[in-house]
């Protein structure tokens, strides 16, 4: 310590009291016990007789003061040159020191006191940190589990992707959990054990026959017993980490694979199980190696010291901290077992950085780099993780694969040299590729928009602090397969549109929401075309006028009055000129700026005629329409202005999805949900979000409307879908376009899914796109990619089909141009077509049969 540079306050002449006291104050502020004892000695020194001793005390003060002060101020170590003059002064001081017994005893006593009391203080720090809750454990977010059964709508392609999401290994012959093999559409899969919210399920080995059409058959691997129903555990897709951005997946000592511990020992601390927290031999060896190499190649820090350094101390580098570290390592080693220390180390160690999220511990490291749990890693994989301990960013295997590979092989070589691996094993491990997953495919599949939604939903029921620290397990409704397709559909289609229309690249933005049609579970949320980026979440926050997407609510309100309105009721598409309360006039137009005269109600919706809709809406009344919108799930304020009839109502894509879910489910609204259940860290269920429904509209009227929305997609404004979707895939939906082509919307549904697409620009400028040219193709791409089931609307009780001729009169099947429309019983037209009175043409029937 003799060459420790002095602090400013110590620079005062030796023995001068002000500097002395300054030092005391400094010491006191940090170390009350020591300072009290020192002050007593200091007072004694001031009586003049013991001047020499006071100087010694002063030396101790200065050193102790430096020790403490540097801890507080994080003072960088000054260069040795600058301290030259001062060092000389100190030597002078030292020469004048006496060597009497009393002095020696005094010094020893002081040292013992200092170190002892300081150790007590450190021990307390250690205890508080170690025995309290050691880490804030972020809530883990899981996707939905995948139900598998004969007839499941899971293609072989999807099955492969799902296994990849879960980090299962494809092998030649399945020998344990988390492995799969495939031969001619026959999959052998050994699932992992998993604790679901409705109980735990042991892993099992099964044979699944699947094709592009879905799962045909499932049998157990041995015995060939038919399995009626099973599920793949849900993939871990994200976490809610706290403000200091430390993310981790907690592991226990028992979860640490032997080869991980071996690798740690081989590289970081070979005498871990023997030393007492500090390894003097290790330090000696490191010193020797470093001296010979002429540079720092080996560290002498034990695992315990590293743990203390990361866990308990600030990251600055100084001698005083080194001393603290050694002291605390000794304390930790004395108090806790090697296993406890190892477990803490395994959870604390920093292994990587992704944006602002810090990857801590081997548990999360395994997911982050290999997308599988730690216990499933193989030697070459754990060797890489252990290699990263030395410098996670320098050896980042995604950015610097060559460096990382070299480092990994070095770890393997060390393991071999120390007898943890045989030559053959080490050779085999070295021959493996790094095996790190691509960033996008790894843990999390990058679903920030969905996690954002989950977080918002959870905030209603939980404190932020509990979400980020209590290790909750959150089971969501996310369908990672659908999510992946949605992300791809939006990004690729927007690029195509920009290219085709020579728009400036990356100016279009968009959002997608996909939900299960019948129960309102949200399966995918895409908040923008760069879905991996957690920025503005357009699916939730882009609140835009919905334009013609509002029309179904108007027509539904009308159709719920069957005595007044049916699908074939004539509606007038004539000019509208309204005087508004503020004195302005409102003269809306059709999109084609033409008048279409009298049209059937169904045609007005199919062709999205503005004027016919306004006339109908004014007749029906704004209030009932607003009530209907509320019933369908709109929670925002709705202003009763006539412009509402043309969609002067701003909603986010997810809010629109709620409205169309109510329609897709036949008039039964299920609140859109992103979460199924929340479990605490001991697997006890804290909360469940059950399936609920409420009747938002008369199912018969909704059936009529939905038939009309099918017409929209086959012969109306969304007829472009016929080119974009496979033949026979019946869907229902509606386009929406707002003023100056600012927003392009499409909302619609198949039998199993409801989806909403929005395309626009963040600066709200015109895109030049209608609903049919922007959002519709995005929607179509999505529906095709996720292979939806065609709509098969079955008429509810009270609905009858009647043949109607082109003039809207009751006709029959054989009549020229007659169409069968559904009617709520009793509401069909009473006027009869002349065709009905002609003799029933046998020829017509035969033609119908054989044409």
């Amino acid at each position: 310590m003799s060459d420790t540079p002095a602090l400013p306050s110590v620079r005062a002449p030796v023995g001068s009291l002000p500097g002395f006291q300054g030092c005391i104050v400094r010491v006191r502020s940090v170390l009350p016990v020591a300072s009290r004892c020192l002050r007593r000695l200091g007072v004694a020194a001031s009586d003049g007789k013991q001047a020499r001793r006071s100087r010694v005390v002063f030396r101790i003060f200065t050193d102790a003061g430096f020790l403490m002060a540097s801890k507080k101020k994080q003072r960088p170590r000054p260069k040795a040159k600058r301290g030259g003059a001062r060092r000389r002064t100190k030597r002078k001081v030292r020469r004048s020191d006496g060597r009497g017994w009393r002095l020696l005893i005094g010094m020893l006593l002081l040292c013992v006191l200092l170190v002892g009391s300081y150790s007590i203080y450190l021990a307390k720090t250690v205890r508080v940190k170690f025995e309290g809750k050691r880490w804030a454990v972020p809530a883990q977010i899981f996707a939905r589990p995948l139900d598998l059964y004969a007839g499941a709508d899971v293609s072989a392609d999807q099955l492969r992707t799902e296994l990849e999401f879960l980090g299962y290994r494809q092998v030649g012959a399945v020998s344990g959990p988390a492995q799969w093999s495939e031969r001619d559409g026959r999959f052998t899969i050994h699932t992992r054990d998993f604790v679901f919210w409705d109980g735990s399920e042991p892993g099992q080995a099964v044979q699944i026959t699947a094709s592009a059409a879905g799962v045909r058959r499932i049998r157990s691997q041995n015995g060939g017993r038919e399995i009626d129903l099973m599920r793949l555990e849900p993939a871990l897709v994200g976490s809610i980490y706290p403000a200091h951005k430390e993310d981790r997946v907690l592991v226990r000592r028992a979860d640490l694979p032997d080869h991980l511990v071996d690798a740690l020992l081989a590289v970081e601390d070979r005498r871990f199980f023997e030393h007492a927290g500090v390894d003097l031999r290790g330090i000696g060896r490191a010193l020797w190696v470093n001296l010979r190499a002429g540079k720092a190649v080996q560290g002498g820090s034990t695992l315990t010291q590293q743990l203390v350094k990361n866990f308990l101390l600030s990251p600055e580098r100084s001698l005083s901290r080194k001393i603290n570290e050694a002291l605390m390592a000794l304390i930790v080693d004395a108090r806790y077992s090697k296993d406890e220390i190892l477990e803490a180390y395994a959870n604390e160690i920093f292994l990587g950085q992704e944006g602002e999220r810090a990857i801590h511990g081997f548990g999360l490291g395994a997911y982050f780099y290999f997308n599988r749990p730690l216990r499933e890693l193989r030697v070459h994989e754990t060797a890489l993780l252990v290699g990263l301990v030395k410098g996670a960013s320098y050896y980042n295997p995604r950015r610097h694969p060559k460096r990382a590979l070299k480092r990994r092989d070095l770890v393997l070589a060390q393991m071999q040299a120390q007898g943890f691996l045989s030559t053959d094993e080490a050779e085999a491990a070295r021959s493996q590729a790094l095996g790190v997953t691509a960033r996008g495919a790894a843990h999390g599949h990058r679903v920030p928009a969905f996690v954002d939604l989950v977080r918002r939903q959870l905030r209603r029921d939980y404190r932020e602090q509990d979400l980020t620290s209590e290790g909750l397990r959150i089971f969501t409704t996310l369908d990672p397969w659908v999510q992946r397709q949605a992300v791809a559909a939006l990004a690729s289609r927007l690029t195509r549109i920009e290219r085709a229309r020579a728009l400036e690249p990356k100016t279009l933005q968009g959002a997608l929401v996909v939900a299960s049609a019948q129960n309102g579970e949200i399966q995918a949320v895409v908040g923008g075309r760069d879905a991996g980026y957690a920025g503005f979440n357009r699916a939730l926050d882009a609140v835009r006028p919905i334009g013609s997407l509002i029309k179904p609510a108007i027509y539904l309100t009308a159709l719920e009055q069957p005595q007044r309105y049916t699908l074939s009721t004539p509606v007038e598409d004539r000019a509208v000129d309204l005087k508004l309360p503020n004195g302005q006039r409102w003269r809306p137009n059709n999109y084609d700026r033409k008048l279409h005269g009298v049209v059937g109600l169904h045609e007005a919706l199919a062709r999205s005629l503005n004027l016919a809709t306004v006339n109908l809406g004014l007749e029906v009344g704004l209030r009932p329409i607003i009530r209907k919108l509320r019933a369908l799930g709109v929670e925002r304020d709705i202003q009763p202005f006539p412009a509402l009839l043309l969609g002067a109502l701003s909603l986010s894509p997810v809010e629109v999805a709620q409205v169309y879910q109510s329609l897709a489910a036949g008039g039964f609204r299920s609140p859109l949900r992103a979460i199924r259940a929340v479990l605490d860290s001991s697997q006890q269920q804290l909360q469940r979000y059950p399936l609920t429904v409420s009747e938002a509209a008369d199912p018969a009227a909704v059936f009529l409307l939905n038939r009309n929305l099918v017409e929209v997609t086959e012969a109306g404004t969304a007829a472009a879908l016929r080119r974009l979707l496979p033949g026979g895939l019946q869907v229902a939906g509606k386009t929406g376009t707002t003023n100056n082509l600012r927003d392009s919307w499409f909302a619609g549904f198949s039998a199993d899914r409801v989806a909403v697409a929005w395309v626009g620009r963040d600066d709200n400028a015109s895109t030049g796109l209608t609903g049919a040219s922007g959002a519709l193709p995005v929607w179509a791409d999505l529906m095709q990619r996720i292979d939806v089931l065609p709509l098969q609307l079955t008429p509810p009780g009270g609905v009858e089909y009647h043949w109607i001729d082109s003039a809207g009169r009751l006709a029959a099947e054989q009549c020229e141009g007659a169409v069968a429309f559904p009617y709520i019983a009793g509401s069909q037209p009473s006027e009869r077509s002349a065709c009905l009175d002609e003799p029933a043409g046998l020829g017509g029937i035969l033609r119908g049969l054989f044409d």
Partner: protein
Amino acid sequence: MQGEETMKDTIGLWRLAWRAGVFAASVLVLAGCAGVNRTDRPAQVEERATSAPRPSVDDSDVRIAAYTPPARPRYARPVPTRAVAVLMRKADDQSQQGELDAASISLERALRIAPDDPVLWHRLAEVRMVQQRHDLVVQLAAKSNALTSPRDHRLLSSNWQLIARSRRALGDATGAREAERRAAALR
């Protein structure tokens, strides 16, 4: 017990008959309207339709197609009755042991597999009835009714009975009587 089993069987039979009826009807409609409709889609497909674009058809044909039931049966693959049956049995066991929340979880899982199965919605309503969640019972039973064949009087009537009991518990005597009347009319 016996009665419930019989009812289950009956409901099952009715559903089977209903499905067969729908299928037969759609085949007939297909055959009958082939001239008008020109539905050249395959009636039974083993593989899911490919992404090949459909040849364009003129509008008048398509408009008709929009209002006729689609030709393809609901499931191109085996109907997953066994998976649903497993979950229904599980839910029954759980209800009998008083694990009502667990039973509802099983039924919800079954509904993810067969979302338009009116019996599952009815069962869920029954579980909620035991839990006295009357608001939800009314809605679930109505949902079941909306999916039930008009000829399945037994299921329709059971749903109306559930609605009647729940309305009564909610203090809606008029609504309860109306529901009872409808339940009785179906018996």
